[in-house]
Every structure is written in structure tokens, then in C-alpha cells.
């Protein structure tokens, strides 16, 4: 092992330490800085070690990329985080694909089989990540419709392109002739096509899974690229990112009651048809009493839980949520937030939005910890969430949400729902919560309805 390898291992461990520090909000900023510094050291190491530090071409490219990256990072607002992450994923994948292509162009004849096969794989995984992420970003940014687009014979097209990719990869490994350029470029194009086909049929609420998966792919592409050029630093860091993406994907799948295979195959959550009727099995509370006004409920409640969903992000209502929270707290009430793992469009989306408006993270509770508390809660305020609070998940067998872990908001004494309408959520399953006795519906844009509550 040479000097380079030893330094590479140290830098990888530093990156790992950086991520470890990210397990607490207190140390996370340093964690990120350590990761960033290790990366900077890695770049300098590579430039010095290869004696290429004085090449102007490299510095011009770094400068252009650095300025663009910095500007995007400063300008983006927190609502746009999902598409920002998707975009960056795509760039990572794209880089791996291009590096693999350059390696093939430059030194294919001298490559051993291991390098040939990995260069083809890096090309393919990178290409899929690039186009898949860009489509996801465009969807999240509403540049293209969020609804799943399913072409005629969509699955067949995907399968055919996958088979063609396999064949090309095998040819690319075994071929010794000048055809290699055409083979590689075709592989890149077809993988880009595959990425588009894959992402375009993903619907809104499946986005958290898709983004996590693409995150994993961008790391994997980097690691495979590392195999081709024989750089242990690329391999280790790429593998770490790949593992991170896979963990997030698993968490998201579990929280949505979907298997990864379902998502990969593109079977839609609403594909399963449920014909039975969903009855509101509400625990009849206060049946004798007149339905109380929202004002009275707010007044007499001591313990309040707020459940934010994608609707809050859409209406950009987090500032009003903060106002409402301040008001309730000034009246001496206890306010907590219940965050479902798939609320929003990416893992942890709600946490970031609430942090943006200065809601302390100690008040943000995840599903498993908050669920037992609903029973002793006076009032739950749901803001733009549907499937994640649907009580039918526990009994409506045959529906797509059956068995999905949900927030037990129906257990609290009163519920106020600030949703756009009473239409079913992404799953297409009616929400019996809306008809329950202890539930008051405030329909319309969350920004408007919350204003009324916060007054």
C-alpha cells in the first residue's frame, strides 16, 4: 500500500466521522464541515499526487462549478429542497458516467476485464441516475406534471432497454475493436432513456422513495467509477453514500407500506382496487353535545399536537404554523409536532420547514414516540395531510394503505383538519377521519384557514 492509499483511508474515516457527528443537531454543523474539509483535502491530495496542480484547465472548471454551486445553494429556499437534492443527485450520477466514458475513450485497450465491466456499469448507473434525477427534480419543481405518466407498454419498454443495456455491457467488456466508442455511447443513451422512463411514471407521494433510491445510485455510480480508475477513495466514499441512500429508501418503503420491488416495477399504490366500503368507526364522543365551535375547542384544549403534511409545504404555511404555535403557547398550552416519516416529498422534509421558522427541534416528535400520546391529547390539528392520518389503515383490508403505520390522530379528543378538500390522498383511499364526530373540517388553502386559527 502506498502513501496515496493510506491517506485515502484516513480521509474516508474522516468523512465517516463527519456523518457520525450528523446524528445530533448539536454537532451536525461540524460534521458537515469535517466532511467538506476532508473532500477539499482529497482534491488537493489528488492534484499534488498526480502532479497536475498547475493545470489551468482544471482550475477554470473548478471555479465555474464552484461559483454555480455556491449561488444555487444560497438562492434555493427550503421549500425547494427536494428538487435541489434531486438535481445534485443527477449531477453526481452524470459526473460518474462522463468519467467512465473518458476512461473508455482514452485507455480501453489497456484495461483489464475488471475495469472494462466496471466502466460500462458506471456508465449505465450514472446515466440512469442523471436522467432519473433530472426528471424527478422537474416534477418536484412542477416544471412537468407531478402525476405519473404511463406510456403504452411502459414496462415492456423498460425491460427491453434493460436487456439491451446488459447486452451492451457484455459487448463492451469482451469487445476488443474500434466499435467500443459506439457501444459505450449507445449504452449511455439507453441508460438515460431508462432513467427517464423510470422516473416519469413515479407519482407525487412515491417521490421520497425515488429520491432516496437515486441518492443511493449516485453513490454507487461513484464507487463503480472508482473500480474503473482504481481509486480507493472513490470506492469507499461512494459506498458510504450508497449505504446511506439504501437506509433511507428502506425507511421510506416501510413507512409507506410499499416494497422496493413495487416501486421499481412501478406498480402504483392506487392500482389495487378496493371495492368494500370504508366505514368511519369513530368512537362516539360527545354525542349529546352540540358540535363545538373551533374557537371553543382551541380555547379549552391544554394539550395540542400539530400534524403537518405536504399541504403545509404547498401552501407555504409554515410561518402561520409558527404564529399559531406561539399563540397557543402564550396561552399556556403544550404544543408538540407529530412528523410522519413520509410526510412531504423527501425524508425529513417537514423537519426542515419547521426548523426554518424557528420551531425548536425538541418539539418535533417522530411517529413511534408520539403515537401513544394522542389518547391524552385534547386537540390535534392536521395541516395538509391525508393518508398518513387515515385510521382506515388499521382495518380496511385490501386497500393499499392497509397495514401502513399512521399517526393515530383520531384518538385525540378533538381534531381540526385544515386540508384543501376531502378528496382521498395519494393512495386513493377515502379517509373516514373526515366524517368522525370529534373532527372539524376547515377546508381550503392551509394558509387561509390557519390565519383564522391563529387570530
Amino acid at each position: 500500500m502506498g502513501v496515496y492509499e493510506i491517506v485515502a483511508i484516513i480521509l474516508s474515516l474522516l468523512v465517516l466521522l463527519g456523518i457520525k457527528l450528523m446524528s445530533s443537531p448539536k454537532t451536525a454543523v461540524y460534521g458537515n464541515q469535517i466532511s467538506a474539509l476532508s473532500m477539499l483535502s482529497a482534491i488537493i491530495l489528488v492534484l499534488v499526487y498526480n502532479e497536475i496542480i498547475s493545470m489551468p484547465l482544471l482550475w477554470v472548471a473548478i471555479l465555474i462549478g464552484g461559483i454555480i454551486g455556491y449561488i444555487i445553494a444560497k438562492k434555493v429556499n427550503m421549500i425547494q429542497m427536494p428538487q435541489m437534492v434531486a438535481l445534485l443527485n443527477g449531477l453526481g450520477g452524470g459526473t460518474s458516467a462522463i468519467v467512465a466514458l473518458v476512461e473508455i475513450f482514452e485507455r480501453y485497450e489497456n484495461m483489464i476485464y475488471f475495469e472494462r465491466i466496471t466502466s460500462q456499469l458506471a456508465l449505465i448507473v450514472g446515466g440512469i441516475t442523471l436522467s432519473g434525477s433530472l426528471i424527478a427534480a422537474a416534477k418536484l419543481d412542477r416544471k412537468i406534471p407531478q402525476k405519473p405518466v404511463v406510456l403504452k407498454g411502459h414496462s415492456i419498454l423498460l425491460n427491453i432497454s434493460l436487456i439491451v443495456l446488459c447486452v451492451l455491457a457484455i459487448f463492451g467488456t469482451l469487445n476488443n475493436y474500434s466499435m467500443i466508442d459506439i457501444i459505450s455511447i449507445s449504452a449511455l443513451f439507453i441508460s438515460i432513456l431508462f432513467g427517464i422512463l423510470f422516473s416519469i411514471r413515479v407519482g407525487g407521494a412515491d417521490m421520497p422513495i425515488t429520491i432516496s433510491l437515486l441518492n443511493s445510485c449516485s453513490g454507487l455510480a461513484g464507487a463503480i467509477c472508482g473500480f474503473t480508475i482504481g481509486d480507493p477513495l472513490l470506492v469507499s466514499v461512494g459506498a458510504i453514500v450508497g449505504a446511506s441512500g439504501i437506509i433511507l429508501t428502506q425507511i421510506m418503503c416501510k413507512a409507506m407500506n410499499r416494497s422496493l420491488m413495487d416501486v421499481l416495477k412501478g406498480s402504483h399504490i392506487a392500482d389495487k382496487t378496493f371495492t368494500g366500503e370504508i366505514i368511519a368507526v369513530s368512537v362516539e364522543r360527545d354525542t349529546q353535545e352540540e358540535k363545538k365551535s373551533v374557537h371553543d375547542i382551541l380555547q379549552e384544549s391544554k394539550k395540542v399536537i400539530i400534524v403537518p403534511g405536504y399541504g403545509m409545504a404547498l401552501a407555504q404555511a409554515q410561518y402561520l404554523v409558527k404564529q399559531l404555535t406561539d399563540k397557543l403557547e402564550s396561552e399556556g398550552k403544550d404544543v408538540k409536532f407529530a412528523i410522519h416519516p413520509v410526510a412531504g416529498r423527501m425524508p425529513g422534509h417537514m423537519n426542515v420547514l419547521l426548523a426554518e421558522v424557528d420551531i425548536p427541534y425538541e418539539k418535533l416528535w417522530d411517529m413511534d414516540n408520539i403515537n401513544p400520546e394522542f389518547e391524552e391529547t385534547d386537540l390535534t390539528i392536521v395541516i395538509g395531510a391525508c393518508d398518513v392520518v387515515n385510521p382506515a389503515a388499521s382495518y380496511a383490508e385490501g386497500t393499499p394503505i392497509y397495514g401502513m403505520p399512521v399517526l393515530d390522530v383520531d384518538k385525540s379528543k378533538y381534531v381540526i383538519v385544515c386540508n384543501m378538500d376531502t378528496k382521498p390522498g395519494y393512495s386513493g383511499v377515502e379517509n373516514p377521519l373526515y366524517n368522525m364526530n370529534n373532527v372539524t373540517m376547515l377546508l381550503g388553502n392551509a394558509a387561509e384557514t390557519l390565519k383564522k386559527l391563529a387570530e
Partner: protein
Amino acid sequence: MSPILLILVFIIATFLGYKVISEVPTLLHTPLMSGTNAISGVTLLGALVSTAFAASNKSKTLGFIAIVLATINLVGGFAVTDRMLKMFKKKEAVNK
């Protein structure tokens, strides 16, 4: 490095990464994602070397594009993660 060693590095890094990342709470999943995302710009290292030693202009141009994209990924990712994490941190200061 030999292929066997590289594969070994891959397996160990996946394992360690898996262990460390499982401990990150849901609260920080978005910054975790954008942070690891930034790190995945590590391909920049490959891009730098490939571009520097590329003989043809075609390769040099492609390499140049790769460096630009990777740097956007790295710088953008780290900067935006920093912004987000500071939001979480700010709250702590107010609380105490």
C-alpha cells in the same frame, strides 16, 4: 490497487457507512441526504485525473464538463447542508 482490494474496501465502507448512518435521527434526514449527496461529488477526483491525462480534445472537453458538474455537486451540496444545519442549531441557542 488490485480489484480484490477495491472490492474489499467497498464492502467495508458499505458496512461501516450502514452502521453510522442508521444512527442518524429522522429529524436530520434531509440534511443527511444533501450532505451525503455532496460527498458523492467525490467523483470529482476521478474527473480531475482523467481530464488531466486525457490525450484527445473530445475527452478533455467531456472531462471539463465532468469537473464543472462535480464541483457544483460538491460545493452546492455542502453549502446548502450547512445552511440547513445552522437552522437547527440556531434554535438550540434560543432555547438555552
